[in-house]
């Protein structure tokens, strides 16, 4: 190929013309789109910055769906009362695809263009992208993953889910109710969500006197064939299979593999999102006794005294009505429960400004968590008391339906076994002061 023919392929005029056209198209698109959306003066916008597509969408999209119900209900009752004025709530979503750069872009868009007063995130990998924005803008953020907390991030709170610490309650209940089970095997995806959860389960098993038959098995998040993973887990003939905090895309095939490879023992997992689908692919008998941490909100136990989530059974019914019962997942209620806490704090503060709401939220060191009054806690584990920790439910599948078996106290477990937790977190490099 001659130099001349190459020149013929890309002429200077052609290159410049096409590049200029592309640039002009980008500019034209930019100018043609709304740059700032203005809410009316009686509406407060709340940002929802989570994965709405991709493999982690199961922990984002159902949460936004739940928030829309929350907003409809609150707005129908006249909105949130702040400083003697009622305000409607409007959610503005941004799909960060669980990508750190898109989380940064989303955070700036929500703050600078949409004018939100509070941003809810799933957290994890994406918090690192939003963190500089939060610090610069002084915006109040919430995460479902308190391992994001650190003393540097004073405007980040974990007011609902204290992942993975609540996993200790499932193991504690298991040990109390099935003391004959003495050995466990565990697997997790090798990422920022899997590792702290493994440390928690290791601490909980050790505290309960349950031995690991093998070291935890970490698989790559890109794994699609779970047959060898399950074969290795079952090789040690454990009494308990622990699926850690695997994403729904992993829990389902892992359960299928356990079923197909003839496993008949106990399974415990942090989540069992869309568990009806797992039952369909395995059997009701196989899934009987499956322990996890996230209740369906039609559970009668949620009507008991001390539960702060407003009308949980009606919320579940409305959710099932709008999106289908099988769409209910671990996070369907969580972001909505954070909004309960935010609305209560904003009302007490008489302001929706982030700093005022944060101060009101933590005013007396306690807060109205969905499952009861809880304490702002976390210095020993996260370096800052920005996690709201109290009771958490233990859920068991019985007759094809998830049922709450008990509410167990996380602080009570912590008081007894915190040394174990800190040891395992440190061993896996998951303490706040070990983060890169």
């Amino acid at each position: 190929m001659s130099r001349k023919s190459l020149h013929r392929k890309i002429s200077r005029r052609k290159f410049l013309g096409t590049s200029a056209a592309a640039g002009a198209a980008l500019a034209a698109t930019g100018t043609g789109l709304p740059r700032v959306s203005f809410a009316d003066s009686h509406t407060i916008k709340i940002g929802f910055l989570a994965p709405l597509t991709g493999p982690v969408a199961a922990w984002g999209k159902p949460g936004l769906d739940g928030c829309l119900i929350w907003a409809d209900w609150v707005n129908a009752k006249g909105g949130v009362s702040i400083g003697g004025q009622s305000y409607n709530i409007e959610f503005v979503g941004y799909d960060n695809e669980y990508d750190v750069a898109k989380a940064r872009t989303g955070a700036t868009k929500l703050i600078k263009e949409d004018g939100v007063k509070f941003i809810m995130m799933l957290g994890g990998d994406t918090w690192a992208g939003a963190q500089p924005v939060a610090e610069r803008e002084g915006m109040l953020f919430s995460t479902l993953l308190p391992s994001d907390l650190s003393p540097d991030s004073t405007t980040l709170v974990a007011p609902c889910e204290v992942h993975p610490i609540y996993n200790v309650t499932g193991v504690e209940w298991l040990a109390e109710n099935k003391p004959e089970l003495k050995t466990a095997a565990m697997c997790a995806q090798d990422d920022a969500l899997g590792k702290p959860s493994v440390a928690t389960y290791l601490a909980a098993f050790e505290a309960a006197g349950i031995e690991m038959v093998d070291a935890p098995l970490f698989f790559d998040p890109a794994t699609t064939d779970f047959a060898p993973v399950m074969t290795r887990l079952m090789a040690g003939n454990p009494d308990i299979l622990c699926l850690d905090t695997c994403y729904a895309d992993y829990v389902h095939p892992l359960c299928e593999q356990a079923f197909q490879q003839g496993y008949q023992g106990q399974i415990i997992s942090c989540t069992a999102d869309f568990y009806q689908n797992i039952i369909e692919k395995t059997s009701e008998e196989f899934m009987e006794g499956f322990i996890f941490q996230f209740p369906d909100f039609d559970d009668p136990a949620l009507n008991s005294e001390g539960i702060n989530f407003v009308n949980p059974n009606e919320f579940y019914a409305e959710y099932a009505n709008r999106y289908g019962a099988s769409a209910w997942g671990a996070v369907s209620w969580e972001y909505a429960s954070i909004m309960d806490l935010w609305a209560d704090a904003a009302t007490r503060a008489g302001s929706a400004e982030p700093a005022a709401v944060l101060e009101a939220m933590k005013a007396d060191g306690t807060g109205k968590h969905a499952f009861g009054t809880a304490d702002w806690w976390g210095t020993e584990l996260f370096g800052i008391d920005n996690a709201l920790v109290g009771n958490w439910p233990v859920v068991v599948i019985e007759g094809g339906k998830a049922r709450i078996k008990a509410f167990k106290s996380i602080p009570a477990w912590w008081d007894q076994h915190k040394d174990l937790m800190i040891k395992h977190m440190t061993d896996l490099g998951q303490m706040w002061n070990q983060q890169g």
Partner: protein
Amino acid sequence: MVFLFAALAVLPYLLSYSQQEIAVLLVINVLLVSSYRLLTLTGEWSLGHVVIMGVGAYASALLAKRLGVPVPLSMLLGAGMAAATAAILSFPLFRMKGFYFLIGSFAAGEIIRLIWKRFTDPFGGPKGLKRIDPFPDIDAGFLSIDFYEPVNYYFLALIVVSASLFVLYRIERSRIGLTFHAIHWQDRLAESVGVDTFRYRTLAFVIASFFAGIAGGLYAHYVGAVNPTRFSVDQMVYVLVWAVVGGTATFYGPILGVIVLTVVNEIVLRALGLDTARPLIYGAILILSVLYLPNGLESLGPRLRARWQRWRGGSAAARREAT
């Protein structure tokens, strides 16, 4: 050229704040995909290019964070590290060709990602590195530039990427570039006239990796965080899609691909409120472009021009007949 740079200079002021953020990442991705094209000139398609970008990002971040190396220098050293990694990998990888090279590059990339995951110190494990030093602000009294602001970082990235593209362009047009092409189309013939194909393939790999490393450094010091997932094969698929949709026969083809797809995916579809439908539409665009533009967007201009000339020719003939 003046018109192009004027358009690029005006562009950020026509965008919203978040669109400026997208423009920064777009400029960085232009360098990534252009550097990838240099490697494809030799006929080899790699699945490890995004990981190589990650090597540049991690190295630059660690040098700045741990050793206090000034960020501009750490970005250059990070790019050097990416090039050095490519040079080492070329020994096993260029014993393979075609499909085997593709798989080999994927395996090599996964090994590097596993190293980042396994060694929490210094790589931060699965969580990666956070609070990476930003590009230092400039404060000279009369001039104050804060690189947290996307418009400022856009111009920084634009300067770096423009210079890099110029170098890549000159390399392609040089004797070395012609040799890359020769190896692509007739490697046996090239060998028979004394071309050391291994050395030239290695050279293309090293140069492409250096610029991918520059892109990694620009990314790390802007976003402030890197993790192994960010450089996974999923991200590599995007680079392949940009290259395939844009076309790789011309220098501007992949650039066109990344610009068009980013604008559609990140600006147009989001603005239309189609957030959750974006993967579906993105996939449809890919399928349609492969079906109807198998040579990429770069072939669209010549095809339209040919049609226009045929139409003009036809019209002229009709006029002659009429007279």
